[in-house]
């Protein structure tokens, strides 16, 4: 592995992901290869629906590892992301063990003695049995390694970002009562962000930064081919060409790869053989998610179809 030439190794990553149905550009493959080699998380940014989350799934499937997903949202804190004490269990145990406690402490003559005896086994209730591991801790405890997906990190608070820093750089967390837990096998960490807010420099510094934009026409055709096998080549070309034209408009939300795939499925279901104005207008709501966008795009449909068909002839 180490002796392998990097370019061939990167190609291997590309084909490995392709086998899982994820067509990666060279940039993506390089990022995946590098993150494995220098053990760094990847921070993936890009518009919604370009396959950021898919990438993590594909890597997990390709390497045959478990994927642990942490969905971020506002107000997410360490109790939900990292670990939590099973408070109710602790309480229950103390209630059940009340009599036992009485026995143990029965021998003590003074309050001071009783306290000293309590100190000796006080830590029992703050041991591993009472820790409820949440995704981050789970990821560190996987013996065979795993893919840890921290999804939409931009939705979480700035404090949570700082919490991640220790995990991202050293693959370990510190639990005050238990000490430091290090990863058995460093997990492959993927963070995704929709750039809703700027992430802190400290977080960015610890990651490889990968930006996935809208794919170019060739690549998108290959993606559609792998995801929707039933579609004919002409239709595929036309629809991808059409979508590329649509993306040149000023829209509130541009159609991304996931919309392309959905649309391809719809077209296959409707048994279309090639694009025409009628069918496009009927299915435009699959591509565009705002009424204003559909209105803005509708007048251009005919010209775009013509353009897509023409490029098909020459391409």
């Amino acid at each position: 592995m180490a002796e392998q030439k990097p370019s061939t190794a990167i190609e291997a990553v590309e084909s490995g992901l392709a086998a899982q149905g994820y067509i990666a550009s060279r940039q993506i493959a390089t990022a995946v290869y590098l993150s494995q080699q220098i053990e760094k998380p990847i921070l993936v940014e890009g518009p919604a629906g370009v396959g950021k989350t898919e990438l993590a799934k594909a890597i997990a499937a390709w390497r045959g590892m478990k994927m642990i997903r942490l969905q971020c949202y506002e107000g997410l804190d360490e109790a939900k992301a990292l670990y939590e004490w099973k408070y109710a269990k602790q309480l229950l145990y103390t209630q059940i063990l009340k009599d036992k406690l009485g026995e143990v402490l029965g021998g003590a003559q003074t309050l001071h003695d009783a306290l000293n005896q309590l100190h000796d086994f006080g830590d029992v209730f703050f041991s591993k049995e009472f820790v409820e591991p949440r995704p981050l801790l789970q990821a560190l405890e996987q013996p065979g390694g795993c893919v840890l997906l921290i999804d939409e990190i931009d939705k979480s608070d700035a404090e949570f970002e700082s919490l991640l820093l220790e995990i991202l750089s050293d693959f370990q967390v510190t639990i005050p009562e238990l000490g430091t837990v290090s990863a058995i096998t460093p997990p492959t960490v993927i963070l995704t962000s929709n750039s809703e807010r700027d992430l802190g420099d400290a977080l960015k510094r610890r990651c490889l930064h990968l930006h996935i934009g809208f794919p170019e026409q060739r690549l998108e055709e290959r993606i559609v081919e792998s995801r929707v096998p039933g579609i004919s080549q002409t239709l595929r070309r036309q629809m991808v060409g059409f979508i590329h034209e649509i993306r040149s408009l000023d829209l509130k939300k541009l159609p991304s790869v996931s919309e392309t795939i959905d649309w391809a499925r719809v077209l296959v279901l409707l048994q279309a053989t090639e694009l025409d104005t009628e069918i496009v207008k009927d299915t435009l709501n699959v591509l565009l998610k705002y009424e204003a966008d559909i209105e803005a795009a509708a007048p251009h449909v005919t010209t775009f179809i013509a353009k897509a068909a023409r490029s098909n002839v020459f391409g």
Partner: protein
Amino acid sequence: MRENLHRFFRAARGVGVHVSPAESIDAMRAVAQVGVSDRTILRDTLLLTLAKSQDEKLALGDCFDLFFSQPEPREDQPQSDNDDASQDADQQANQSPSSGSDSDAGEGQAPEGLGPLAQMLLSQDRNAIAAAIASASGAASLTDIRYSTQRGIFSSRILDAMGLQRLRDELDELTATNPALAERLRGALDALREAVRDTVAQGLALYAREEAENLRNEILRNAPLARIERRQVAEMRALIRQIARRLRERYSKPRKRQRRGHLDVRRTLRRNAAWGGVPFLTAWKRKHRDRPKIVAICDVSGSVAQVSDFFLLLIHSLHEVVDDVHSFAFSSHLIEVSDILEKKSPEEAMAEIMSKVGFGSSDYGSSLVDFEKEFMSTLTPQTTVIVLGDARSNNLDPRADILRRISERSKRLVWLNPEGRLAWGFGDSEMPRYATFCSVVRQCATAQQLERAVSDIVATYQ
């Protein structure tokens, strides 16, 4: 290669990509993994490890292309000349003065006793020349180049380091003894000069940008906003956006934060009353933190308009930090402009505001009356009111009593005055009368002062 990478990091900093030592170490490790043989992989690798946003990626990509394309033209020029010439070189070689004559110099005609530079030039070893230029630019510390005016001195430093002095002496000698060879050497020297000039120009493009940009921004930050030139307005807007970003990053913290570890005893007891006080459910103390609410009242008459423009731009770029902003503009009467600013681009918005209320002589009294009549209800005890204006009311009634009421209803009243403290109270300035009701009065004429003022206002809510 290490040396080259370090130079590249410096160049990357020049184009605005922040490369910290830790990042450069990461990049080094990554490059060590992928090797340097494949340029596209190397480019991807550096982009992945160094750039942290899409803008930075673009900038860094350009920088990479510029940086690593550098050796090519230098090598190619002599080579292509060489190739062209060598086809038909045999007889012509001696008469054509410049590069063509170099062609068969490689055949070992170079006479003995010449200096290393002359040997190198005559033998047309372009790799050696390229290497010599590179090492000479290292010796002349080309990476320290800062201004375009330094190009001459760096060129001559590099040439000196390569041994130009000796070459000149030899040229003088040869002109007497072997004119043809001297002619050829002179031509080669001209080509060398050109190559060095290109190198320096590229060095300037790569390394000087950071410094030049810093210098320009520094000047811009301290220039009076009211008097900046038209062509600088766009740059100023960019600078204001930068300031807004900085403020956003500093102050956009969540409003509520749970303070774990501080038990709220009262709420816990109440919540667990059903279990006889055994605390199954715990309640923790919370701390509420308000986001700023801002009401901005801006004078848009004559000299103050430009400052108001930038101020409004800044305030309205602070969405994440500021809960809500109401902006009002006035010169002789007052209107609300929040919607215009939210919906339109800064240029259009300002044009519309100016057409509605601009170009009047300012009348603070009647504008304050307008505000009290219609918009007094926007003020809450959490609001900071910011008035931006020079308080020059053309000797009309200033109505300071309204300002007093505004100040009583709001959390703070901040007055930003583009004029210097010295001018307050002279002529028709009503500043001293207004100042008594303001929590803070400060001068605000440059971008830097603007940043400080807004930063202070936001900070009081933290």
